[in-house]
C-alpha cells in the first residue's frame, strides 16, 4: 500500500503510551497454575465487548484484553519456575477473539492448547452470536383497531434458548411494554437500558386508515428498522440479554398485551406526572460529588448531547436537500427529453435524449443515496441522542439514590438526637417505652442508612462499568456504520462515473 508510510507517524505517540500496557498474552503461567485465571476471565465475561468481538477497534490502551489479561511481570520469580517446566503449551500465543472487519476470513485460527484459549474463545466466539431481525410488517385488523405485526426472528447458538433459531410475531406496543419492564427493573440500579422507538400517532393513523402510499410505506420501514436496532442493542447488553422478560419476548408465542403503553391511558398520564416531578426534583437536589469521574462524565455527556443533536440536524438537512436534488434532477431529465424531441438536428437530438436518460438514472441514484443518508447516518445519530438521554437518566438515578441515602442519614441523626434528649426527661414511666421505641426506630434507620450507602456504591460501580461499556459500544457502532455509509457514498459515485462514461461517446457523436 502506497500510503502505508503515512500510518506510522500518527501512531507513534500511541506507541509510547502503550509501553506499559497490559500484556495481551498473559503468562500461560496463570492458566497453568489453576483455575483462577479462568475464573477471572469468566467473571469478566459479563463485561466483555459486545457483538463480534472487535478487539481490533478497541483502542483503549488499558483494556486491550481486559477480560483476558492478567498482568504478570516478566521478571516475576514464578516465571522461572514455570519456564523450567517442560514444553509449555503456554508458549503458543493466545488468540484474541475473531476479528470481524473481514468476515470472509472469519475462520477461527485457534490455538487450541491452553484452557485459557477456550475461555477467550467463549468470550469471542460464543458470546455475541445472537442475531435478531425484524421483518415482514403485516397489517392486522381494520380501521382504528388495526395494527402492524412484525416478525421477530432470533438466531442464536447460545444455550439458554431452547432452539437455535425461532421467530415470533410482535406488535409495536409489545416492544414498548418490554422496554418499560426493563426500565423499571434496571434503570434505577444504574444500567443503561436502550430506549424504545418513539410513538407516532400521525404515522400510525395513516397506516391504520389504509393509505397505501409512499409516505406510509416509508413510515413502516423506518419503524421496522428502528425496532430491529432497538432489539439488537438490548440483547447486546450482557445483563439485559439474560433477563427473563427479554427471553420471553423473543421466544414465547403468546405475550400478554402491554396496555400500559398507550399514550392516553391512565398509566401514561401517571408516567407524565412522574416525569414532571422528577424534573423538579432534579433541580432541587444538590449533590456533593465526591467523585470527579462522575462529574467529568456528566459534563462529557452533556456536551456530547448538544453536539450530536446539532450533527443530527445537519444530517437531516442533508437528507432533505438530497431528496430535493433528486426531484430537481428528475424534472430536468423530463425537460431535457422534451428539448431533445423538439431539436431538429438528429445527432444533437439523440444526445439530448441520452442526457435525459442519464439524468433520470442519476436522480434515482440521488434518491437511493438520500435513503442511505437517512437510514444509516441520520438514524444512528437519532438513536444515540436518545441513548444519551438514557445515560443521563442513569446518572440522575444515582443522584436520587444518593439523596435517599442522605435523607435516611439525616433522619437517623434526628432520631439519635431525640434519643439523647429522652435521656434528660423527667417522665420515668413513659421513658422506658419511649426509649425502646426510639431504639427500634434507630436500628431500622441504621439498617436503612447502611443499605442506602451500599445502594449508592453499587449504583456508582454499575454506572462506571456501564459507561465504559457504552463508550466502547459507541465507538464500535459509529465506526461500523460510518464505514458502511461512506461505502454507500462510494457506490453512488462509482455508478455516476459509469453513467457519464456511457454518455460521453454519445456527446462525441454529435457532428
Amino acid at each position: 500500500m502506497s500510503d502505508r508510510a503515512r500510518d506510522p507517524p500518527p501512531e507513534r505517540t500511541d506507541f509510547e503510551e502503550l509501553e506499559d500496557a497490559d500484556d495481551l498474552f498473559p503468562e500461560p503461567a496463570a492458566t497453568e497454575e489453576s483455575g483462577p485465571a479462568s475464573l477471572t476471565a469468566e467473571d469478566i465475561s459479563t463485561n466483555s465487548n459486545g457483538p463480534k468481538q472487535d478487539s481490533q477497534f478497541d483502542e483503549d490502551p488499558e483494556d486491550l484484553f481486559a477480560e483476558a489479561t492478567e498482568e504478570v511481570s516478566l521478571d516475576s520469580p514464578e516465571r522461572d519456575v514455570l519456564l523450567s517446566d517442560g514444553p509449555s503449551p503456554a508458549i503458543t500465543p493466545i488468540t484474541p477473539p475473531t476479528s470481524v472487519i473481514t468476515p470472509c476470513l472469519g475462520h477461527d485460527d485457534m490455538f487450541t492448547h491452553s484452557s485459557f484459549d477456550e475461555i477467550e474463545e467463549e468470550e469471542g466466539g460464543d458470546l455475541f452470536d445472537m442475531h435478531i431481525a425484524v421483518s415482514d410488517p403485516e397489517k392486522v385488523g381494520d380501521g382504528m383497531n388495526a395494527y402492524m405485526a412484525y416478525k421477530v426472528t432470533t438466531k442464536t447458538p447460545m444455550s439458554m434458548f431452547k432452539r437455535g433459531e425461532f421467530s415470533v410475531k410482535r406488535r409495536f406496543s409489545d416492544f414498548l411494554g418490554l422496554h418499560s419492564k426493563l426500565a423499571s427493573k434496571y434503570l434505577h440500579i444504574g444500567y443503561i437500558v436502550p430506549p424504545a422507538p418513539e410513538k407516532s400517532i400521525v404515522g400510525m393513523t395513516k397506516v391504520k386508515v389504509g393509505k397505501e402510499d409512499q409516505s406510509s410505506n416509508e413510515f413502516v420501514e423506518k419503524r421496522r428498522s428502528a425496532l430491529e436496532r432497538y432489539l439488537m442493542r438490548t440483547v447486546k447488553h450482557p445483563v439485559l440479554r439474560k433477563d427473563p422478560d427479554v427471553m420471553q419476548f423473543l421466544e414465547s408465542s403468546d405475550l400478554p398485551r402491554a396496555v400500559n403503553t398507550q399514550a392516553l391511558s391512565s398509566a401514561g398520564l401517571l408516567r407524565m406526572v412522574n416525569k414532571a416531578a422528577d424534573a423538579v426534583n432534579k433541580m432541587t437536589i444538590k449533590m456533593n460529588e465526591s467523585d470527579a469521574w462522575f462529574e467529568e462524565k456528566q459534563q462529557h455527556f452533556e456536551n456530547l448531547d448538544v453536539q450530536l443533536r446539532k450533527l443530527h440536524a445537519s444530517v437531516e438537512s442533508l437528507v432533505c436537500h438530497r431528496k430535493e436534488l433528486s426531484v430537481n434532477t428528475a424534472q430536468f431529465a423530463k425537460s431535457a427529453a422534451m428539448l431533445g424531441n423538439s431539436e431538429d438536428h438528429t445527432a444533437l437530438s439523440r444526445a439530448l435524449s441520452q442526457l435525459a436518460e442519464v439524468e433520470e438514472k442519476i436522480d434515482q441514484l440521488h434518491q437511493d443515496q438520500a435513503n442511505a443518508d437517512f437510514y444509516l447516518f441520520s438514524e444512528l445519530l437519532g438513536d444515540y441522542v436518545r441513548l444519551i438521554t438514557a445515560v443521563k437518566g442513569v446518572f440522575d438515578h444515582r443522584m436520587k439514590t444518593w439523596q435517599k441515602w442522605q435523607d435516611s442519614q439525616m433522619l437517623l441523626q434526628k432520631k439519635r438526637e431525640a434519643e439523647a434528649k429522652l435521656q434528660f426527661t423527667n417522665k420515668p414511666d413513659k421513658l422506658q417505652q419511649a426509649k425502646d421505641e426510639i431504639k427500634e426506630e434507630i436500628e431500622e434507620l441504621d439498617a436503612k442508612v447502611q443499605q442506602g450507602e451500599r445502594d449508592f456504591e453499587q449504583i456508582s460501580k454499575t454506572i462506571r462499568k456501564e459507561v465504559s461499556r457504552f463508550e466502547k459500544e459507541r465507538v464500535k457502532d459509529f465506526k461500523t456504520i460510518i464505514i458502511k455509509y461512506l461505502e454507500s457514498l462510494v457506490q453512488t459515485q462509482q455508478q455516476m462515473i459509469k453513467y457519464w462514461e456511457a454518455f460521453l461517446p454519445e456527446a462525441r457523436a454529435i457532428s
Partner: protein
Amino acid sequence: MSSTLDENSKEKMRSVSVDLNNDASLLIDIPDALCERDKVKFTVHTKTTLSSFQKPEFSVPRQHEDFIWLHDTLVETEDYAGLIIPPAPPKPDFESPREKMHKLGEGEATMTKEEYTKMKQELEAEYLAVFKKTVQVHEIFLQRLSSHPILSKDRNFQIFLEYDQDLSVRRKNAKEMFGGFFKNMVKSADEVLISGVKEVDDFFEQEKTFLLDYFSKIKDSTAKAEKMTRAHKNIADDYIHLSATLNTISAEDTTANKKHLEKLSDLFEKLRKVEGRVASDQELKLTELLRYYMRDIQAAKDLLYRRARALADYENSNKALDKARLKSKDIAQAEEHQQHCLQKFDKLSESGKRELTGFKGRRVVAFRKNLIEMAELEIKHAKNNVALLQGCIDLLKRVGYTFQTLHKTKCLVRRMSSCLQSPLSFDHLCLTENSDSYVFGPSKRLQLPPRSLSGLSVHSSQSEALSVRGSYVGHGANTSGQLEVPRLHSRPRILQRSEGEGDQWKKEATLAE
C-alpha cells in the same frame, strides 16, 4: 472589489460560443472589471489592425447600460433587420449571494467560528462566480459583434469601442429617438404576428415552428437546470456544517472515536469542495449553455418577426398597389413602394436564411462542446470523490488495525522475550521508525545479559503483513525467527521456527493460512 481575469480562466469560460475572437484584425476582451455596489464597470480593451480606428490598441470604461444601448441601436437599425443581433447581456445580478450573505450574518451566533468562516468563504466564492459570469457574458456579446462580417463594421459599435468619454449623453439621445415603449409594443405583437402571417417559404415555415417550440422547451430546461445546481450547492453547504460539528465533537472526545471523527470531518470538508465544484461546473456547462441559447433563440425569433413584418408590409403594399390601380391614382408611387417592400423582404429572407443556418451550426457545435466537457468534468469529480472516500474508509479501517496490531506485536514480543528466557522486559526495547517499518532495537539502557533478545524489527511486506523478525541470542546459539502479523487479522502467528539449542520456538505450531 476588482478582479483581473487571467487568460486561462477566460478561455475556460468562453465556451458557450465558439470561434470567437480569432480574427486578428479586431480583438476585443474585457481584462478588468470593477464592482461598486450595484454597478459594474467594465474595461473594454481593443486591439485592431483596421484603419477605421484611430489607434491600434486602446481601452475604455463601460457600464452595463452602455452595452444595452449598443444592442438596442443595432436592433433598431433597418439595415440589420435580416441579421440575428447577438442577445444583450443580462444585467449583473448579485441579489442571490447578497441575500445569502445577509442570512449568514443573522445566523452567525448559531455557528462555530470555523463554520462561519467557511460559509463566508463559500459565499464570497459564489459572489465571485456571479461576477465572472457577468464579465464573460458581456465579453461574448462584444466578441460576437466583432466576428460578424457586417455588424463589426457598424459605426455605433466603433463608437462604443473607441469613444473615450462617457457614453451616457449619447445614450439619452438614443432613448429619446427610439422610445422604450415602441420596443415593448413590438415585443408583445411578436407571437401574434408570426403565427398570423401566411408563410410563403417552407424553410422559414419550418424554422418558425421549430424555434417557437424549442424556445419554450429550452426556457423550461434552463429553469430546471438552475434548480438542480442550487440543490447541489445546498448539499455542499450541508457538508460544511457536518464537517464543523464533527470537528467539535472530535475535539472533546477522548475515546478512540477521536481519530475517526477527525478523519471524517476532514473528509467532509474535502467532499464539499468537490461538490461545490460539481455545482459550479454544471452551472457553467449546462445551465449557462441553455441560458445563452435561450437568449440567442429569442434573437433568432426577433429576426423571424422582422421578416414577417416585412412580409406583411409587402402584402400591404401589394394591396395598396391594387387599390391604386383600381383608382388609377398614385400608381407609380404604389409600385415603387411595392418594389421597395419586395426588395426589403427578399433581402431579409436571403440574409435570414443564411443567418439561421449559421445559427444552427453554431448551436450544435456549442452544445457538443459543452456536453462533452460537462460529462468529462462529472467523471473527473466523481473519481475524485471515490478516491477521497476510499482513502478515508481505508484509514478508518486501518487506524484500528495498525494501532491494535502493533500493540499486539509489542505484547507478543514481550512474551516471546520471556519465553526465550530473556530477563529483558519490554522496556529494554525501543522503537525507531524507518520509512516503512518499525525497528525494535536494544535501548541504551541495555546491558546485554547472556541471554538476550537483541533486536526485533517490524517490516511491512508486499503481502500486506507486518513481520516481526528477531534474533535471539540464547543458550549460546543464534536463533532467529519470524513472526508474521497479517494485515487484516488481529492475531499474530508464528510462521517460522528457529533453530538452535534450547530453543522453545520449535514447539510452536506453525499455522498456515
